[in-house]
């Protein structure tokens, strides 16, 4: 118990000090937190509940747009802001910028949670691969439709307000927003998976019909879980919108084959249905991505496709899954032989 406490405290201190220890890597570290957030939220439905969504990126993109509409719409007419022929420049004061950032992010999260709650009623009727295809279709369709709406900036996208202060401070703000969101999500999930609610969604994953027969109102559990995960992705999308300053619908907001598939790969790499799996997977994937994007430029997508195929075909349990079968005692699992006489592995006290 104490060892665990020390490790967690050390990690937390590292998280807080990271931008000062590695000042050059601030943006990369912020992106790492984004990956951790989306991987953890994907694992809520994909790993813990057994609903593999390929369209969670829908909430990311929607979060970006909702945040932009709230943050800009509070002070300026949004339609004129996104008008490409606009000639005058509008500047945000510091107080306007921060109220926009906070209210925009929260609004984006709440809107995405509502979206998930409403859409879930439709989509959770689809099972297995149909759920994956349906949610993928949702993300692609929304991206295509949004890119045709002029009021939302069309295919050009939206330019976000710019922070007036120093650029390094701006990077720090973005890093701490992502890190704060990630840490609170992790603490929340640590508690969430231990509750009865967590047990219920695991039951849905293992056998939905039986769970229903045991008196679990499965649809309600599925809707609430998806809404919570959508809230966090929506907020992450909103922060990304402020980080990127400019975003456009198909490649940044509803980036189905980029981040939309990265989150699944992160989870599979680390191990589905575990708490630490998505975090470790996101870290491993981020390193892999940075290395290939830097040293194999041009071939990076080929490497990514190959990575997906190799993980899915050969290592579907991920790192945590591998460790769990190899060293069960690390996870508090006691293994005995079939006569229950000889202890093969036992958790250390």
């Amino acid at each position, binding site marked *: 118990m104490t060892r665990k406490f020390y490790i967690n405290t050390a990690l937390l201190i590292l998280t807080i000090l990271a931008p000062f220890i590695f000042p050059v890597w601030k943006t990369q570290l912020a992106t790492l937190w984004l990956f951790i957030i989306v991987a953890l939220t994907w694992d809520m439905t994909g790993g813990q509940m057994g609903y593999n969504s390929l369209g969670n990126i829908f909430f990311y993109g929607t979060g970006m747009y909702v945040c932009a509409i709230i943050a800009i719409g509070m002070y300026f007419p949004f339609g004129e802001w996104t008008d490409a022929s606009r000639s005058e420049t509008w500047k945000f004061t510091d107080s306007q910028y921060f109220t926009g950032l906070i209210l925009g992010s929260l609004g984006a999260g709440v809107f995405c949670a509502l979206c998930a709650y409403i859409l879930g009623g439709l989509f959770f009727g689809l099972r297995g691969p149909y759920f994956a295809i349906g949610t993928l279709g949702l993300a692609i369709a929304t991206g295509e439709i949004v890119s045709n709406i002029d009021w939302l900036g069309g295919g050009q996208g939206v330019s976000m307000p710019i922070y007036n202060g120093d650029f390094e401070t701006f990077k720090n703000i973005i890093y701490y927003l992502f890190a704060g969101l990630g840490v609170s999500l992790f603490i929340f999930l640590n508690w969430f998976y231990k509750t009865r609610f967590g047990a219920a969604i695991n039951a849905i994953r293992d056998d939905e019909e039986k769970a229903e027969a045991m008196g679990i109102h499965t649809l309600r559990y599925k809707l609430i879980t998806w809404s919570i995960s959508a809230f966090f992705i929506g907020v992450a999308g909103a922060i990304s919108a402020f980080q990127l300053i400019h975003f456009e619908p198909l490649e940044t907001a509803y980036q189905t084959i980029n981040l939309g598939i990265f989150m699944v790969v992160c989870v599979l790499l680390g191990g589905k249905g575990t708490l630490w799996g998505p975090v470790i997977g996101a870290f491993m994937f981020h390193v892999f991505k940075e290395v290939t994007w830097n040293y194999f430029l041009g*071939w990076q997508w080929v490497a990514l496709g190959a990575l997906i*195929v190799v993980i899915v075909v050969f290592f579907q349990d991920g790192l945590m899954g591998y460790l769990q079968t190899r060293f069960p005692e690390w996870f508090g699992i006691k293994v005995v032989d079939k006569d229950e006489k000889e202890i093969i592995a036992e958790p250390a006290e």
Partner: protein
Amino acid sequence: MDEILFNIRLLLDFPIVNLKIIIDGIMIGALFALAAYGLALVWGVMNVKNLAQGDFVIAGGYVAYSLNQVGIYPLLGVPLAFVIMWGIGWVIYKTIITRVIERDLFTSLLATFGLAIMMAQIMNLIFGSDTQSVDLGLPTWFLGPSGIIDLPAAKVIGVAMATVLAIAVVIFMKHSRMGQAIRATAQDSRAARVMGIDTEKVYAFTFSLNAAICGAAGAIIVMIWVIQPFYGITYSVRAFVVVTAAGIGNLPGVIAAGLGIGAAEQYGGHIFGIGYQQAIAVVLLLIVLFVRLMQQRRIRQVLK
């Protein structure tokens, strides 16, 4: 909104425009039907949902394109693309697909998604991201009053070739020994194995056949439209719409749905503007999924 109403009024005032749209739709739909039939085959026989379907089509197109670059007559590219894509399909089956058949459904979906990313990018590295096409050098006929319906001879030939290929595949599936084995495996792979069918061979054959059909479709597409490395996903989406709507193992349904989605897309593109064409195909997929869901819900019985 006014624009949409204007476009609808145009359709009502000039019925001949409808005819033009339907002809265009059927032509493009015939090729969707071909890709969808390959998908239905693989889905039905080995329960693999191939998200790389569209990339096989585009790969076939690039095979025909590069054959044309070295001086082979474009129409000959269609059978050659069929043969070459057969080989590529066989290699992909032996390296990847054979390992995901017995696994759960999400595995095959994700593995083929990775394959799709890989194929699109390799084609992008080899051929560049420009759109490419092959010119047959054939005339275009103009029909109807004041020549409103344009009918390029290349399109007619392409659709005819697609029809011939579809009929050949159907006859093969009905009457050949291998076709029987494929259908038996689709019905019950375990029983087929007991009866002495080498199901592994059947799987390899089916997947290669699917890649070959897609390749031929792509070789036709490169003659009448354009191809680009990242266009694959559009064909994958349409193939999924068609198969989900028609169901697997329902060939007339697949053809009807393929032609239907072609026409629906052309109408949608006309009414809402060309920018929405991709969105329409995807929205159709969602509608089909939910209509199917409603149908299932009616059958589903609950104890209350």
